């Protein structure tokens, strides 16, 4: 899952180093368009639907947080 997520992220924003960034939302790096695209992409490739209520900065500020979210959603 992790590698696929990385792939998706890099496709959407090739200009960003996702390993280092921990302020993707709060720092204004990802905008709402990117997030929705990301959700659609994850849904398409990983078959995980992220509900609207999970679209909060804490879940998207870093690749790591995002991975955690996906793992949690996958379990449910």
């Amino acid at each position, binding site marked *: 899952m992790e590698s696929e997520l990385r792939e998706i992220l890099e496709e959407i924003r090739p*200009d960003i180093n996702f390993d280092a960034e921990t302020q993707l939302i709060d720092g*204004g790096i990802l*905008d*709402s*368009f990117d*997030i*929705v*695209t990301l*959700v*659609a*992409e994850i*849904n*398409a490739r990983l078959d995980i*639907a*992220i*509900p*609207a*209520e999970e*679209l*909060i900065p804490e879940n998207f500020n870093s690749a790591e947080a995002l991975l955690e979210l996906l793992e949690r959603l996958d379990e449910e």
Partner: protein
Amino acid sequence: MSFASVTFFVFLGILIILYYALPHKIQWVLLLVASYVFYLFAGWKYLPFLVFTTISTYLGTNYISRNAEASKAYLEREKDHLSKEDKKAYRAQAKKRSRIAMILVLVVNIAILFFCKALLVDPFLSLAKGNTSLSFLTLGLPMGMSFYMFQSLGYLIDVYRDKAKALKNPFKLALFVSFFPQLVQGPISQFTELEESLFSEHAFDRKQIAFGLQRMLWGFFKKMVVADRIAVAVQALQGEEYRGFAFFILMIFFAIQLYADFSGGIDIAIGIAQVLGVKLPENFNRPYFSRNIADFWRRWHITLFQWMKRYIFYPISVSKPMLNLSLKGRKKFGRFGMRIPVYIGTFLTWMGTGIWHGFHWHFILWGFLNCIFIVVSEELTPAYEKFHSRVSFSNKKGYDIFQIIRTFLLMNLIQITDLFPRLSEYFGKVASLTYVFNFHILWDGTMTKLGLTGTDYIILLCGVVLMFAVSMIQRKGSVREQMLKIPCVIRYGILFIMIFAVILLGSYGIGYDASAFIYNQF
């Protein structure tokens, strides 16, 4: 009771004294009482709506949270007896009950909001009466309804989403809904952000109080000295005969008025709250320095657009049907198809915002223009980037400034729709920009026929320069913190000058006879 009135200052003075003199435990109660007193000053007529929203939100949130707890307890108790499917079904059922409750409260409240807006602040009515109300500046009407409703509905959804807990004390909820500083022009707070500082006890903190008062002073300056003064010219320039360059001037003036009035009002609200130890969210982040339209909307009326994003844009664009649509689109059209949900979401969000401003075509046009510009600029981003990777600018700063000015002008073109309920007039005027080159209005005396004298223009210029300077200083952090570093005599001098500038130069009261002038225009 307007913030810019002596009555309000007396009210605030009494509140502050009681607030810090009485036991700090009852501070929030005092705020609740003050908020209702403030609301009652505007008339008892709208009180039932406020109370209704409070009660319905209370019932809704508490029902949802009790329902969630009960189902959790049931599952816990029966966890050994139930199969995984049973549990899932039970959970879904519980969630459904919560959803029905939430939707019920939402629908009822939104119905009331639309009903009141349509009936009480319909733009047609205000036009017929001859006072074109500046609808961007009167969004809160009637009586802050939009703001307290957005706030409570956001809270309701948060409880449903399990992001906030339901308040067991209805009076605390009543305070959250009615907190008076934000009742007039916002900002719209999120419960989880406001909760802590709204209900906790606040010790007397001289610095916080001084900072709050200073912020209010700055807000009054922007609103009364700049916005209310330039309003006269904005009003006059809407006349049929002002085209071409005059329309351009109108756009600039309106931009100044809108920002000075709106952000000034927010400064006052945040300042009042700060005096009381409550931290309200920021609503403006130097918006006229934005690089593109999307950026602008992240820095202008921030709390509203956060709200829109959180409760309208995201839910729409990541809903099941949208994701399915995206899957299909992806197969057919590739990258562009995949983004269909984003566009639909954006479109619906902007249309909704436009309609919320008032049931009128020019607001719908406003929403549409915003949507178009954002989508186009988003789509062009890769092209821009390609362009930039090939052509490297020797003058980075120059390009920044170009972007800022371009965004500013583009935004003005969109925002000015607010003034033209008749679309044909708007398009006519915009078109006139391209063929009417009446620059001579700058020196042929037209400018002094707009209701402003030479002195007024000088005051306005000083005000705008000051606002610009403060924006520049802000980049290095809090202006008030930086002011602490200068000698206290100078600091007091500056504050005194500002206070007397507001008193003497503010456009208020009967002396400032703007109405007489406007009257002559029609």
